């Protein structure tokens, strides 16, 4: 006996959209089971995880603070993935954006001027863009596997940041500890409210989502993105240039990741540290898929993932539930999304040995 997946002719549009919702509901169900096994009141635990963070203004702001980089990066990755360009190196592009922007901030440390922050943003975008240009160039020119090159460049970027924080960017008055001076006020992101940390980056994320959504659904470029991924041959016949699409998608996602990076450094961090991201560039891959590679969907996916982080911290504080529970939650969620997606597009068929001939062996 073996289990086979058989493609459904035309996946149901309704189910395609319902699939993440079903996955989330199933995750909650697994959550209940997990909490019962841990000896917790499941309703209370789920409340603390998913509802309580939404009951205080400060925590809602924190939700947005975490979601901001996830959304900015996730939007760019959606365009990459839609056009069949597998940029796995957003983490590195995020870091290089942070590095380039910080260089501006530290060069003009103590200088007061309205132009410093915009200049930092531009530098951040360029930093991320140039870092994404490398895998794009190698893919377009030499047909290199971009998954490998972009991923490996992430580690180069992480080491480079580490070097800078311990060397050239280090605060001379900081007892040789690996961190820079705290950025001056004119190099810090304006906050959107008193008493919280929500910053200008949140607006960038929403604006980026809307602009990219319009691009994707209302312009020829958007059509080119989608057709390049779905039917590369058709795209070629239509006269679309494959190489220019590689550059377009990589540079766009690199720019957005770079912008996210400098927004994070100039926002909630406020200085250069040896590590500036708890893995946003990788988590954003989950966000992009959870959001159906749709810029507006990515906003909701980013907020949901941010919710699991904050809920996980609250659960630790209030219920003494270990941090691993949050990782388990995120893992189950991703697994179930992939499972639901697969089942929307494929039927499971259990067949006997005799069907070997008719289905043509393993593969």
């Amino acid at each position: 006996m073996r289990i086979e997946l058989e493609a459904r002719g035309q996946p149901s549009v309704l189910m395609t959209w319902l699939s993440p919702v079903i996955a989330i509901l199933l995750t909650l169900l697994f959550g209940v089971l997990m909490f019962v096994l841990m000896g917790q009141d499941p309703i209370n635990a789920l409340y603390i995880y998913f509802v309580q963070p939404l009951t205080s203004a400060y925590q809602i702001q924190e939700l947005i603070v975490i979601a901001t980089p996830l959304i900015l990066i996730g939007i760019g990755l959606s365009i990459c993935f839609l056009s069949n360009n597998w940029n796995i190196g957003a983490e590195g592009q995020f870091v290089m954006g942070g590095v380039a922007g910080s260089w501006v901030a530290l060069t003009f440390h103590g200088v007061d001027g309205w132009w410093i922050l915009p200049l930092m943003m531009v530098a951040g975008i360029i930093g991320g863009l140039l870092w994404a240009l490398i895998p794009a160039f190698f893919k377009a020119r030499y047909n290199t596997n971009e998954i490998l090159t972009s991923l490996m460049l992430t580690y180069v970027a992480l080491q480079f940041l580490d070097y800078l924080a311990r060397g050239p960017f280090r605060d001379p008055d900081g007892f040789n500890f690996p961190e820079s001076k705290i950025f001056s006020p004119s190099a810090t992101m304006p906050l959107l409210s008193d008493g919280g940390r929500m910053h200008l980056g949140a607006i960038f994320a929403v604006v980026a989502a809307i602009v990219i959504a319009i691009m994707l659904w209302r312009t020829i470029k958007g059509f080119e993105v989608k057709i390049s991924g779905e039917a590369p041959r058709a795209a070629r016949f239509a006269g679309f240039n494959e190489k220019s699409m590689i550059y377009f998608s990589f540079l766009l996602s690199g720019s957005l990741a770079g912008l996210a990076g400098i927004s994070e450094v100039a926002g909630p961090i406020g200085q250069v540290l040896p590590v500036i991201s708890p893995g946003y560039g990788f988590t954003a891959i989950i966000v992009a898929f959870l959001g159906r590679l749709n810029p507006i969907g990515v906003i909701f996916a980013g907020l949901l993932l941010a919710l699991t982080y904050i809920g996980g911290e609250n659960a630790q504080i209030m219920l003494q539930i270990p941090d691993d529970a949050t990782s388990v939650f995120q893992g189950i969620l991703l697994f179930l999304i992939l499972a639901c997606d697969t089942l929307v597009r494929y039927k499971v068929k259990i067949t006997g040995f005799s069907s070997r001939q008719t289905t043509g062996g393993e593969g």
Partner: protein
Amino acid sequence: MTRYLKYITAAFLAVMLGAGANAADPLKAAFVYVGPVSDHGWTYQHDQGRLAVEAAFGDAVETTFVENVAEGPDAERVIRQLAATGQDVIFTTSFGFMNPTVKVSERFPDVTFAHATGYKRTDNLTTYSSRFYEGRYVLGQIAARMSQSGIVGYVASFPIPEVVRGINAFMLGMQSVRPDAQIKVVWVSSWFDPGKEGDAAKAMIDQGADVITQHTDSPAPLRVAEERGVFAFGQASDMIAYAPNAQLTAIIDDWSGYYVSQVQAVIDGTWESQDIWGGFNTGMVAMAPFTNMPDDVAAEAQATVDKISSGELHPFQGPLFNQAGEEVVAEGEVLDDGALAGMSWYVKGIEDTLPSSN
């Protein structure tokens, strides 16, 4: 063994302090950890301190903790959330929590904060650390006695002053009994990465090192030493269970006394912001039993511990020379705490160059 000692100490303190506990609302103390409580190293020992607080005060104090908190923006949110949900005392136990703790402490003037290993204080934020270099000096002395080749492998994390100070103290301890001793340093750029730590230990053993020491938190280097039949030292806690034949001793971080005294001071209303940097003499640094070594080596090590504890010996007493051979501390003087806190140079005889020194 040390765990039992700790329980006995805690029980003893409980008896002493129990009378002072009243029936009012319990004081709430929270701990923020950079690693998992199960790391059997840095975070584990802080959590042992938390348990000692629970044992000492019983119902009078309620504790909670958050583990695996990333250094950076996450830390500020966690600390703030703890302050906002009614915690009275908050201990943040990693250097990278410094600026977040400062920010939150300014916003919550009624909450008491204590930050480990940092240097920024406010009216309601105190700092504390241990003089681990005292223990490292003793390790160095033992290593020099036990090594055949005279080469010791040092698994290091990051070139911050704390670690550089440890390497220097270790080297000075070695030189005190064997002037030609050598150190090999491998930087693994992590506090906790068993794979890398183990590989570093293997590489150095292959290059002739027959004693391994570490400034990283996992027991992996000890396990490698056990397999390869060389000696090693435990880190942060007694790791003898991982290397019964290889562990010579271990530096034990004992935060119990400090945490209990801070919580007591808050209860009594006598708490004040100050820098506590405790060594052997305060019990914050302790040595695991001296094992797998001849009696005379153990006796010498114990004598060194006693001398450092009484102040008769300072690991960084002159004459001290840097790598270039220039005198840094003159005969009869010792390096002051400010210079120790920002240490970023090697003593004479270490052949490594500090990464990214500028």
